């Protein structure tokens, strides 16, 4: 781990993260999408990437809440990598 820090310019030090006034992470660059009625991962991939065939990227990024790429629920918040 420490060896990685010496060579990887993106290695993160163990410091307290900056929080927003509301307690969120001020550095959080993740993009989120709340599932609406009638949406599919294909449609969401089309919206963000222009290509529905890239839906597995979204599925993989949300494996903690998605078990099946064909089953998403209204109101679910998906991280868009």
């Amino acid at each position: 781990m420490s060896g990685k820090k010496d060579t990887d310019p993106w290695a993160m030090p163990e410091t307290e993260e900056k929080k927003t006034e509301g307690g969120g992470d001020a550095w959080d660059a993740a993009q989120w999408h709340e599932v609406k009625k009638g949406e599919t991962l294909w449609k969401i991939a089309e919206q963000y990437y222009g290509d529905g065939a890239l839906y597995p990227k979204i599925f993989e990024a949300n494996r903690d809440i998605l078990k099946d790429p064909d089953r998403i629920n209204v109101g679910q918040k998906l991280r868009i990598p």
Partner: protein
Amino acid sequence: MHRHFYNFISAVLASTLLAACGAGDKGPAETALKGAEEAINVAKGEASKYFADETKSLESALVAAKEKFNRGDYKAVLSDAPALTSKAQELASAAAAKKAELTKSWDGLSSGMPRVVEAIKSRVDILSQSKKLPAGMSADTLAQARAGLGEITQQWTAATDASKGGNLMDAVSKANSAKVKAAEVLTLLKMPVPEALRG
């Protein structure tokens, strides 16, 4: 005849007295000068990193005080040296405060920027695989974002190198440039700009 003799004696006595007074100031002047030099030596290590001009000015003032001492102008040294000591102590305090401020900034940047860049890199990689870009995004925009990512990576590498070399001022400055560029690239990619990158 007698009057001339007394005048001569008075003049000799006066000059002897003045010389004695001046010689009496030599010890305290030397002590004060040493005190100022020590204070400047203690301060200049860190101070020169953050307040280069002020540090040089203080060192020049010390050289001037030493010249006064060598000329035997001990009264002037006694007048100047305490002020130099005081300025050196103020400079040391200011440098310590600046270092603490920069360390805090660097800690935030080095913790947050890698995550921001990872998000940009991920999106650029995915969009590069897309057969058709999303509405409102052209191939040129994606090319700009890709070039921007390259710039950010270079700036960040330079910033971490500066930090490893102990140059916090340079590290924070370069990291802030990377931060500004990251905000531009996120906007190009129609991604949210984190609060830490705004303003």
